């Protein structure tokens, strides 16, 4: 089997084409694949569709806000836009599309894609603008909305530790979207904080994402200026 361990971030993202759909893990600072995003900024792919909890936090550490500011995205699917003047401008100008999805529905749509589920019903959003245009169904006297899976060409995620088979461990709230995005994308690329372990060195009971969902991994190099984790603004 070809090794999943790549020597550089640039090499790991080299084949991302224009128009690709990419899932980006992370919630707040933990789990944001900053190094892969920085490499993608340099790589140049454009017309991207991003799937992520937020469109990033403009003006802080590297996250997907930089891809939006660099006019590299045409669509973002997310649950929460905190403050993004650039995104508002791009939507206004018709240069970017925003699909705002309740966070639990976003998670479950990602999970469904990785689990081979064709669609599902959720009560979330009934009676709100999020229900517009959705199929409604009453099940046991409760109203539900039909929601479809979200798939991606790539998932960019960050993990704490990995063995060379691609078995991953996350640390604390870094786990967030990692496990479900790894399953939902055709190619999952992981930036890993610790040095790679040999196969067998990780307790099978402590694997959070099995290596069968992982395509490529890169160990995070020593942080250049501006790439390191930092608190997100209030």
């Amino acid at each position, binding site marked *: 089997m070809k090794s999943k361990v790549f020597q550089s971030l640039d090499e790991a993202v080299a084949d991302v084409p224009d128009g690709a759909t990419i899932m980006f893990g992370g*919630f*707040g*600072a*933990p789990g944001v694949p900053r190094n892969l995003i920085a490499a993608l900024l340099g790589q140049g792919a454009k017309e991207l569709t991003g799937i992520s909890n937020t469109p990033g936090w403009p003006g802080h550490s590297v996250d997907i806000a930089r891809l939006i500011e660099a006019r590299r995205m045409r669509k973002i699917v997310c*649950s*929460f*836009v*905190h403050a*993004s003047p650039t*995104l*508002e401008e791009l*939507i*206004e100008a018709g240069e970017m599309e*925003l699909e*705002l*999805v*309740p*966070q*639990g*529905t976003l*998670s*479950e749509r*990602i*999970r469904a894609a990785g689990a081979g589920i064709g669609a599902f019903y*959720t*009560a*979330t*959003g*009934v*009676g*709100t*603008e*999020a229900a517009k245009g959705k199929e409604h169904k009453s099940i046991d006297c409760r109203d539900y909305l039909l929601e479809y899976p979200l798939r991606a060409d790539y998932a960019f995620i960050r993990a*704490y530790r990995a063995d060379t088979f691609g078995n991953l461990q*996350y*640390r*604390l*709230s*870094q*786990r*967030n*979207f*990692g*496990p*479900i995005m790894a399953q939902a994308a055709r190619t999952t690329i992981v930036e890993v904080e610790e040095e790679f372990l040999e196969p067998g060195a990780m307790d099978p009971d402590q694997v*959070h994402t099995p290596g069968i969902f992982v395509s490529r991994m890169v160990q995070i190099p020593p942080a250049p200026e501006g790439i390191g*984790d930092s*608190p*997100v603004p*209030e």
Partner: protein
Amino acid sequence: MRISLDRQTMCDRLAMEFQDGWVVNLGFGIPALCSNFDFGDKTIIIHSENGVVGVGPLAREGEEDMHLVNASGQFVTLRKGAAIVHHADSFSIIRGGYIDVAVMGAYEVAENGDFANWTTAGERAGRIGGAMDLAVGAKRVFIAMEHTTKGGAPRLLKRCTLPVTAVGVVKMVVTNLGLFEVTPQGFLLKEIAPGYTSEEVQAVTGAEIIVPNDLTVFKPFG
């Protein structure tokens, strides 16, 4: 002396309502401060939508763990017996009915229990986050918010003017001026900020408030 309640005091008051054994979700913004409350002998399990079950107080400066934040992205601590799940499981906890109360911020709350907290007028984006899932999944919703907008307009209203997050789910509201129960008859003023009169509170409220004979001063000051 008139005391407009600060955010920690507002959250402390809501936290006093949590019952022993409750699983409590704290939303983005003001509600995060509920995790600083000392629950004494009660076991309260605080859930954060990003998959943390058993959130403790906010982390002190210098003691932050870069891998551990709450729904607001603030660094937090863990209580004993904490557990971590991924995002889809975290929202299974929410939609599956395991949350006894969800505490959220809001722009508006209506006397019929509707609330609005995800978009303001005229903006292209919005902040749904986990609010819609929490509103349909949690057994009850409490709101912590400032009583009026920065411009002085009421946030407690007869009906919401902004797009709603969910309909008819809010049970209790704390503001800097008092504690309100949402009843079939409307907003019942349970406790009032020190030094304020119910007339003063009514004047900055967009719905008629019910003032009981036994109106008391805000409990943390009582």
